[in-house]
């Protein structure tokens, strides 16, 4: 079943329409390519999400309050600056 829109024949995709008419030959590869790309993109995005590197431990920036800083990283910071052994 074809419908005229703006002088162009377009294929309907409503249920019951797809099984009794052929997709126009020029549109089918475009749709297949589009669908494949979409599937690849979503698979890639999911894989990236799963395999992304873990968050790095927060560096002791001075914007963090004294109580927010882990003592071991704080000690290392002090060591680097010559404030403790």
């Amino acid at each position: 079943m074809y419908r005229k829109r703006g002088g162009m024949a377009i294929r309907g995709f409503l249920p019951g329409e797809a099984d009794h008419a052929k997709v126009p030959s020029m549109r089918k590869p475009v749709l297949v390519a589009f669908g494949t790309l979409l599937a690849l993109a979503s698979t890639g995005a999911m894989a990236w999400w799963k395999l992304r590197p873990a968050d790095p431990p927060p560096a002791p920036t001075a914007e963090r309050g004294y109580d927010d800083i882990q003592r071991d990283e704080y000690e290392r910071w002090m060591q680097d600056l010559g404030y403790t052994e």
Partner: protein
Amino acid sequence: MRTPPFVLLCLACFGALLGLRFALEPLSARVAAVFAEPRGAPEAVMALPPKPEGLDAKPPGEGGEGGAALLTLEACEAMAKDVRDVCLQAVARQSAARDPDHAVDVCAKVADAELREECNADVAETVAPVDRAVGERICEGLSTVKWRGQCHFGMGLALAETDVPYAVGRCERAEAFRDFCRHDVVGEAALVDLEAAVAVCAKEEGDALTRKTCWHGIGKYLARRSAPEAAAACARSTPDWRGNCFHGLGWGAAERDPDATLAFCADQGPYADNCRQGVAHQLKRFDPTRAVALCEAIATPAIRDRCLAFVTR
């Protein structure tokens, strides 16, 4: 029904892509942040080194010999943008002790937000010996944790030689720089009033890191003047932290003469290796190969391991 189904499909796909793009936006921002900040870079670890020498830093045009020109607000305003802020900072420091309100007004003209905070912290540090209340008010008015902490730290340093209890009290407001502040304030104080400095550390306030860095400060600052004087002070330290005091001694004395310090360390009995470790830590900056060799020669296994871990990282 006259709904165009292909258009619906296109709109659905477009909507899905749009949704995906916004859903991934926080992730992409995080990834960008990871690539933008190289891990391991010194500035990533140490946001802003404390300023142990801050009191000695003279702004351009202030005091000193050589007839340096006095900077003026007008001169700064006429300068190029990249030096204008630095110039304004210097002008603010020049007038801080005489006219702190004017100095704060000058700081307000600094365009860069970070430098503006630093400018105010410098004014507070400079005015502190003259008017503590003004300095405290300026520090409390700063908007970032970092510069509020630095501001109180600076005030503590400014008064370390004249009012030790007050100076140590400022450190309690120095936030992330609290232990750095105590280390330096107590160290500065030890140079003029060892009894007062020892009294602070002998209170054994805070956790292990806070307590041991206190004695480290005494050892390091005194050793910059005299290693034997520092060793005598370290002998008065709490036994648990005495090794850390001798580490400070080794570091501070090695800033002047590493070889003479190593010879001195050899006579320090059970603390000789702590002293050598301090020398190695100091040498890491200037002669890392020798620092590694020094660490490897340390006899005490635990100290040798700590020493090597530090100089090779």
